[in-house]
């Protein structure tokens, strides 16, 4: 066990955990931030996406040790009292159905928008290409991201 410090959604947390534990499990089980989902557990589906030190990562592939002293943004950190424009757009355009992929989609879209101020459809497609959705057929998700333009 190791004592690790994580800066999640602008709050500092200290946790005792196995250094090889997945960041995904630390977030969900230690910090009770269950917005981040597990789909495949092997980097294929993007349900577990979070932003670590400004970069999109799969939290199922990050060992807790490497999250030590890092800034982490999860889906819970996207909304401030009320939902973000991106989240509202997902609701308006039908970008979320069963919802399991949604937190990951929102985080991946957020990361893409931070990289590209005026994303093209291609940018959006690429930015979300690591995220699988079995419900929407993707068009509504892409529409949602397009709808709120450069803002997130």
């Amino acid at each position, binding site marked *: 066990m190791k004592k690790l410090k994580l800066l999640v959604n602008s709050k500092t947390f200290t946790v005792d955990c196995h250094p090889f534990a997945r960041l995904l499990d630390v977030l969900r089980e230690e910090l009770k931030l269950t917005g981040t989902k597990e789909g495949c557990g*092997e980097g294929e589906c993007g349900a577990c996406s979070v932003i670590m030190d400004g970069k999109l990562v799969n939290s199922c*592939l*990050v060992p807790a040790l*490497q999250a030590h002293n890092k800034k982490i943004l999860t889906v819970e950190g996207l909304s401030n009292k009320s939902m973000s424009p991106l989240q509202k757009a997902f609701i308006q355009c039908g970008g979320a159905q069963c919802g399991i992929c949604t937190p990951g989609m929102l985080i991946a879209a957020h990361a893409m928008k931070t990289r590209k101020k005026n994303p093209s459809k291609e940018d959006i497609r690429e930015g979300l*290409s690591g995220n699988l959705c079995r419900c929407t057929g993707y068009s509504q998700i892409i529409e949602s991201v397009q709808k709120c333009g450069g803002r997130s």
Partner: protein
Amino acid sequence: MRGYLPDYDLSSTENLTEAFGKLAEGEKPFAGGTDIMVLMDAGVLPAGRYFDISKLKELGGIKVLKDQVSLGALATYSDVRNHKTIQKHFPILVESAKEVGAIAIQNRGTVGGNIANASPAADFPPCLLVYEAKINLISSSGLRTLDYTQFHLGYKKSEIRPDELIQSVLLEPRFLDYHHFWRKVGSRQAQAISKTMVAAIAKVNRRKIEDIKIAFGSVAPTAVRCRKVESFLLGKKLTSEVILEAKNILTKDIQPIDDIRSTGKYRLIASQNVLEEFLCGIG
């Protein structure tokens, strides 16, 4: 079933001396974790102690030196994609980096991990073969430099000793007047591991081939340079007969097999077709 956590350890490492000490005690390096964590999830990661190399400055960064470019082992696919000098001189490294997994994998997966893994399906090795890269291996007894062509020995086997780390890959920017070609054939644009892939560069003057380097991945126990095809094509004009013959000769350079991702027969035909696509594009 996932690996059982108490069977494993992961420690941080601040400097190379400490890292060499850990290697001597049988600990294994952990870089971006995109291979290791997947093995862990599948319950097939060998139990034991691992150490995080991601903070070792000596292994990091892309450096533009006087007449070469040094790609640190810890450089990620995203670093490679976004680097101006790599984009200009080694465009197929950028192409292949763009096709590894998706963004989240590209942000974490490293050059060193891709090479160390020594998978025949890894995306960088064919590119490094055609750019005739060198590889720097570092240990407590110093640095040794090998031609990249000598590095991969067989299926998941390479020249690296247990006391060594991959430090960097060295590339010479001398291919500006070449055509650069990269093509990966897989089942899905993102994330897919390839059925076959080709990296190729060629210098062509009035349709005549002055220099050509071709390498394939996923179709032999390691990534392979296609020396027979290359020597056949050298000095020739690219007529349709020449291209047809090159496709025939390719069967002597690669030995694709059946596995979960594809069949040997499909791989061979697909490889011949991407070779043709390349040659038609430069002729």
